[in-house]
């Protein structure tokens, strides 16, 4: 900036560059505040708040009624779990399309275990669901990490295979609420401190995964692999192991989501969870995780899941016709991706400019 005197915009621009290039100059508090305020997560959270606010103004019972607060928190629990696992996989520059089928399989397994082995403790059933989910996720992971086939293709294949297993196993059978013990179904209705138990479970998983990604070597290596897979190999990172863990985690969380599904709805048919994988991908993308990996957080993905579920409930209240509801969700996804490209291109340009000036 040699040719112009400092105009306000120029000053603003300069401050922007400093924030980007020299965050260490700021005090730790300043840094935290700018990071949070400027984060993608914050902007999605604001959209979520705006949607809830708009719906509540139109129909106050959207938020302020006995059941609606519970629904607001309980309905997203399943998608929140799936989005958490999906975010980890997408951060490594892969995708897991099989999660909907894994959910269906473990949801049916949950019901089946209660029917066939009455008296089995609830915790054993939950563990079984998670273990089966992990195994199914590992199959994806092995095929991707060792077969070197794109995850999109592998998990598209296992999406059909896993669903086929449920269809064959369940046939036209249906697990009903009567088949499951009351203690298990209470999980779906109980609240602690006015937060539904199932939501608490989802939030706990989210917290653990988020903490791992931020503070563990493994978590950082997942980001590195997604940021540049070739560089990860040259760095000597154990890429295979990280991919296996990412897919195993996604499977485990989807398995847990299957158990949660059974507890929440009380009935499980062979079509449980159909199409959920695309909602999970959508939530992750809306939540600011780059579709080519390397950046984004599970927190964003979780807020994306909340937004996706909430918007589906809010749009009818706002009087938007059925057809347009889906279009709004679509616009949200495309908007998120476009925003992502624009922001990252802008940031790249600024970072380059800043280096050339110094």
């Amino acid at each position, binding site marked *: 900036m040699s040719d112009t005197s400092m105009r306000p915009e120029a000053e603003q621009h300069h401050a922007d560059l400093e924030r980007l290039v*020299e965050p*260490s*100059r700021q005090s730790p508090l300043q840094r935290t505040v700018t990071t949070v305020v400027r984060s993608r997560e914050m902007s999605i959270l604001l959209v979520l708040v705006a949607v809830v606010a708009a719906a509540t103004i139109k129909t106050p019972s959207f938020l302020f009624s006995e059941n609606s607060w519970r629904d607001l928190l309980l309905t997203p629990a399943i998608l929140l779990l799936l989005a958490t696992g999906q975010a980890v996989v997408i951060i490594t520059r892969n995708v897991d399309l099989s999660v909907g089928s894994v959910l269906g399989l473990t949801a049916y397994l949950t019901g089946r275990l209660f029917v066939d082995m009455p008296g089995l403790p609830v915790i054993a059933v939950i563990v079984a669901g998670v273990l089966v989910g992990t195994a199914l996720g590992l199959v994806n992971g092995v095929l991707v990490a060792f077969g070197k086939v794109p995850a999109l293709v592998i998990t598209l294949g296992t999406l059909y295979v896993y669903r086929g297993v449920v269809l064959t196993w369940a046939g036209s059978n249906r697990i009903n609420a009567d088949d499951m013990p009351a203690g298990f179904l209470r999980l779906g209705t109980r609240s602690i401190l006015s937060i539904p138990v199932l939501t608490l479970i989802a939030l706990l998983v989210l917290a653990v995964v988020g903490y791992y990604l931020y503070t563990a070597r493994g978590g950082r290596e997942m980001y*590195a692999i997604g940021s540049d897979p070739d560089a990860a190999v040259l760095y*000597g990172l154990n890429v295979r192991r990280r991919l296996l863990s990412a897919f195993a985690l996604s499977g485990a969380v989807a398995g847990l989501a299957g158990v949660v599904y059974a507890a929440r709805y009380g009935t499980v048919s062979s079509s449980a969870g159909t199409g959920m994988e695309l909602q999970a991908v959508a939530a992750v993308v809306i939540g600011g995780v780059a579709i080519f990996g*390397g950046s984004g957080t599970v927190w964003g993905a979780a807020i994306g899941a909340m937004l996706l579920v909430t918007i589906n409930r809010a749009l009818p209240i706002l009087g938007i016709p059925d057809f347009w509801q889906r279009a709004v969700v679509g616009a949200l996804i495309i908007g998120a991706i476009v925003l992502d490209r624009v922001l990252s291109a802008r940031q790249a340009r600024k*970072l380059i400019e800043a280096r*050339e000036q110094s």
Partner: protein
Amino acid sequence: MTSAGASATLELREVAKAFGPVVALSSAGIRVEPGSIHALVGENGAGKSTLIKIVAGVHRRDSGDFLLEGESVDFTSTAESKAAGVAVIYQEPTMFPDLSVTENIFMGRQPLTAGRRLDRAAMYAEAEELFTRLGVHIDPRRPALGLSIADQQIIEIAKAISLDARLLIMDEPTAALSGVEVDRLFAVARSLRDEGRALVFISHRFDEVFALCDMVTVMRDGAYVATHRVDETSVEEMVSLMVGREVADLFPKTPAAVGEAVLEVAGLTSTGVFHDVSFDVRAGEIVGLAGLVGAGRSEIARAVFGVDRYDSGTVTMNGRTVAAHDPRAAIRAGMAFIPEDRRKQGLVTDASVARNVAGVIRGKLAKGGILTQRAESRAAGPWAGRLEVKTAALDMNAATMSGGNQQKVVIAKWLATDPKLLIIDEPTRGIDVGTKSEVHRLLSELAGEGLAIVMISSELPEVLGMADRVLVVCEGRLTADIPRGEATPETVMHAATHPLEART
């Protein structure tokens, strides 16, 4: 430091490595003592990078000895070579653009707190310390995205220092650095040497080799040639060791009548890539574009053809300005462009020869929007025949052909558009010696028929043997325009290694 008589930090003997039919190394060797800086020099394609990658664990040698501090080793991964204390800084640094500079330095071996969590405070502090020691001002918290090559190299060096590497290999680290940055790098390199570490320094700049290094090993055509003490050798001796062969008979360039200027490039500039590039190419002329890898030759060609953007300047074909950033306009104006990596950019390897050849003129061949295989074969036939492409039939899959024949198919493909100008990047890379001369003869013939040709080549003998005129690029600027009669390895190399500002 190890005592006298102890084994060398690195020793390679009679190392061979082939990639399919292409022999990259036939009998390469080097011996690097601790506490010394060892230069490795050789022409582009002499096998230096392959040798480095074997040491780094990226490739495995086919045969030969590989000793590290006297012990025979055989790395199967980069993780193993790292654990053994080898750090390599590649020509193109490897970074994770989304992650912070500090994370880039410590990835995979971050300091941990008692609870096995990342110790970010310790990481930032150590990064800060490293940068201070290296004398650079980079914020450890900024993302790696947007760093210049010089900065990225500093990060790589910081990584190597924090690894406490015994052996540090730098592959052309100064290619993208300014004078100040080079001085800084050298100061760091000397201080590392004085700590008893061994350094291998690959460079094309002889002044740097003489300023920095203790020993020099010369390679040629994948083989060891000689090792000298730097203070006992001279630039002339090194150049003759590097080139060391007759070039004339390998490259059958027949003189052709030079006509009107076909291509005129004026003041072409793309910030940070190349600056103020002006040249012209006449009908019947082969212009060689020489320079080191990364000097900006391919980038200039890509901008002229309209693949890449440029900020200012003009490209004129036969007196008419060609629209910028529009390869279709360039093709209409009569340009043809054969990129360096033909498998990736010039040839549909999974398609038949006929389809490849007919690909660019599909529009003309199609009748009512429908393209028949027969029309494709009819159009492709004469070309493939003329180029002596050895394929049993035109419907043979291009992927199964040899590199030389693939290159001819790509050339045929573009000749079918009836171009006035052919830009060809590394025409014989990865092609065996026999077929090389066929490609050369073809280019020479085409020039004889009045085609203007721009040939980018890293192989000095090829440039000297084929070009009527040699343009030399150094750090994004044209530094010399040498007619055929005056072009020698020395003049070209000199221009390629001396940026303009340094010479005035």
